[in-house]
C-alpha cells in the first residue's frame, strides 16, 4: 500500500533543504570551539551563506506547498496523530524561517553585514548593538537545538511509519516512484 507522493519540486526542495541545514548546523558545531583564524572566518562566512540559502529554499518550499497540494496523510494514522504530524511540519517551517532570520539579525547586531557568496550585500535587519548581538546568538543557538530535537522526532516518526507500520511513508518523499 502506497500513498500518493509529493510533487517532484517539493521533494527535491525537501532534500536540498535537509542537506543545507545539516551542513550549516555541522559547520557551526565545528567552528564554535575554534580559535579565531582565517579558516574560522571562512567557515563563518560559509555558515551564513548556507543559512541564507536555507531561508530562500524554505520560502520556495512554502510557495511549492501553495502550488502543489500535499498528499493526504496515510489512512492508517489516527486523526490525533495526523494533527500532531501537521503541527510538527508547521513547527519545522517556522524554525526553518526563524533560525536563518535570527542568525542574520545576530550578524547585523554585531555590525557585520552579510555579503551573500561574497557578492551580494544583504540589508542589515537591525542596527549594530553588541549586547543585542550576544542575546541573539543565545536565541539562535537555542532555536537550533530545538529544531534538532524536532528534526529527530520527524526522522524517527518517518522511519517508524515506514519500517514498523509498513505504510510506505518514505516513498512520499522519494524522487523515484516505488517499483511494484
Amino acid at each position, binding site marked *: 500500500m502506497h500513498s500518493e507522493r509529493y510533487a517532484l519540486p517539493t521533494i527535491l526542495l525537501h532534500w536540498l533543504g535537509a542537506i543545507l541545514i545539516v551542513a550549516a548546523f555541522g559547520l557551526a558545531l565545528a567552528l564554535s570551539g575554534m580559535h*579565531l583564524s582565517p579558516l574560522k572566518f571562512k567557515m563563518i562566512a560559509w555558515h551564513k551563506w548556507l543559512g541564507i540559502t536555507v531561508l530562500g529554499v524554505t520560502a520556495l518550499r512554502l510557495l511549492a506547498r501553495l502550488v502543489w497540494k500535499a498528499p493526504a496523510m496515510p489512512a492508517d494514522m489516527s486523526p490525533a496523530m495526523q494533527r500532531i504530524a501537521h503541527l510538527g511540519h508547521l513547527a519545522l517551517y517556522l524554525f526553518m524561517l526563524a533560525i536563518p532570520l535570527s542568525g542574520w539579525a545576530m550578524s547585523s547586531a554585531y555590525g557585520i553585514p*552579510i555579503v551573500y557568496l561574497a557578492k551580494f550585500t544583504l540589508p542589515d535587519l537591525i542596527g549594530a548593538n553588541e549586547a543585542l548581538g550576544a542575546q541573539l546568538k543565545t536565541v539562535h543557538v537555542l532555536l537550533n537545538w530545538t529544531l534538532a530535537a524536532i528534526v529527530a522526532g520527524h526522522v524517527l516518526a518517518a522511519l517508524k511509519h515506514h519500517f514498523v507500520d509498513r505504510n510506505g511513508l518514505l516513498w512520499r518523499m522519494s524522487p523515484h516512484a516505488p517499483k511494484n
Partner: protein
Amino acid sequence: MKKRLALALILSVPLAQAAPIDTAQSHIGFTMKQENAPVEGSFKTFSGNVTLDLAKPAAGRADIVINTGSIALPTREAENETHKKEWFNSAQIPTARFTATSIKSLGGNRYQFAGKLTLKGITRDVSAPFTAQKQGALTVVDGVLPISRLAYKIGEGDWSDTSTVADEVRIKFHIAYHG
C-alpha cells in the same frame, strides 16, 4: 620675574598655534573587508595636536598618537585577537603615530596632507585628501586614508591571507580641534 614672564609669553606663542585635539568630538575609525563583508572598527584612545590655520594651510602640521590596545571591533573575540603579536602586538608596541608635515589647499574646503604613519614600528609615507571646516569654536577635519595592512605587518602568518581579511584598510578620521 619680568624676564621669566616674557620668556613664558614667547614660548606660549609659537609660530602657528598648536591646538590639542578635542578627543570627545573626534573619531578615528576604519573599515576592512572580511570575506568581502565591510567590518567597522575604531580606536577609542588617541591624543595629539593639530596646527592648521585654514587660511595658511602650508604651515599646517598634525601629530596624533593612537593607543592600539584601545581598538574596538564587532566582537570581543576579534578585539583580543588584534592585541596579539600577529596583529598590533600592543603589549610590546602600544602606540601608533600619525604626522602630517605638508598640507596644501585643493580649493574650497578641500585639502591634501602628506606625512608619515607609524604602525607596529613600521613607518611609511602617507597622503590623502581631506575636508576642513569651522564649526563654531572648533575646526573639524574629515578624510579617509586607505592603507595596506600588510605594509605594516598587521596580520602576519596565517592572517596575511588577503582572501579572508583584505589588505586594504580604510582609516576614517574625524578630528576636531579648537582653532
